[in-house]
């Protein structure tokens, strides 16, 4: 869902920090609700990596088959969830809309998450291409 684009001013992000790592089902539900909100520009997911295969040791090459690594569908678009989600960053299109979006997110999280969470406003991900992006030819 993220793309590398330049912003003149870093836009605010709302971080959703749940008390537990989210299952794929919960992530899917949450994303479908948040993605439809007004003023939400993009959503980034952070979490613990879930490898496809055991990558070293005597079990090298065996499939991990982690139930939380699967294809999820968000607003009709299918994507592979490769992490067990721990933090969700919701970028808002203008600082004036942060409160409105934050209230909405809090309501949705209260409804969907069966455990505690907290929200925080800040800027957590890059908002302009880095030198590494330039070297990789991404920009």
């Amino acid at each position, binding site marked *: 869902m993220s793309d590398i684009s330049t912003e003149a001013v870093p836009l605010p992000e709302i971080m959703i920090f749940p008390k537990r*790592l989210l299952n794929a089902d919960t992530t899917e539900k949450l994303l479908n609700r948040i993605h439809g909100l007004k003023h939400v520009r993009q959503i980034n997911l952070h979490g613990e990596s879930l490898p496809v295969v*055991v990558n070293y040791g005597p*079990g090298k090459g065996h499939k991990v088959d*982690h139930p939380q690594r699967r294809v999820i569908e968000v607003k009709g678009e299918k994507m592979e969830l490769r992490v067990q989600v721990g933090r969700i960053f919701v970028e808002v299109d203008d600082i004036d809309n942060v409160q409105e979006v934050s209230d909405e997110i809090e309501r949705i999280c209260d409804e969907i998450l*069966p455990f505690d969470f907290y929200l925080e406003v800040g800027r957590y991900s890059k908002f302009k291409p880095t030198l590494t992006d330039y070297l990789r030819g991404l920009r």
Partner: protein
Amino acid sequence: MAYKRQFYPGASLPAKNRRRFMDPTQEMKKLREVAMEDVVKILGHRVPGSEYKSIHPPLEEGTEPDCPIRQMVKPLEGAKAGDRVRYVQFTDSVYFAPIAPYVRAWMYLSRWRGIDTGTLSGRQIIEMRERDLEKLAKDLIENETFDPAKTGIRGATVHGHACRLDENGLMFDAWQRYEWNADKGEVEYTKDQVGIPLDVRVSVGKPATDADLRSRTTIFRADGVDMNDDEEVTNVNLRIHKLRTLSGFQPWKVKE
């Protein structure tokens, strides 16, 4: 006056639990039953029922050189038979696991012999002769130092001890060696400790409740029992810190 062995200072709950785990005269509670065959499968070193591989002839054959230490130390069964040295490694969640890696080291060295152990941030390895290791691993899985949800048996990729728990309250495991069986309310191992799938699911029982874990834990935490609130523990730690620092730097300043 004969020296009376001491284990751990403090009057707080984690301090008492630490002391109890470290004291070999205290018997540990057995909380579950796991068949030896299943333990051998989880360890993954040999096929259950197969012969133990050896790295030297049995000691009874008398090929060892004459040595006073060899005469003094009674060998373990595995050493007698010449077994290979194998390992088991436990990971303990920071979320009030019954035991923490460093306490494991103290407990192992205080209670058992014939082991080599190493502490890392979230895990604790034991190396031992194979048949003795299997017995010890069985004890450690069955007794109160193990919780199905907050303790993991992980030979590699142990990452997860400091991660948040998943929605079922299980410690994160990137290789998913164990799964939550919602119907039974139990945790089941589906892979051995290095991620090779098992032919059967091995149940290690029901996880303890949060309240139970908090009463059994050996972990000091700011949101549980803060180590700073236990004056004796804090003073002993400060003393150790002072002695270790000064002794390596200006040892003449150590007065006590």
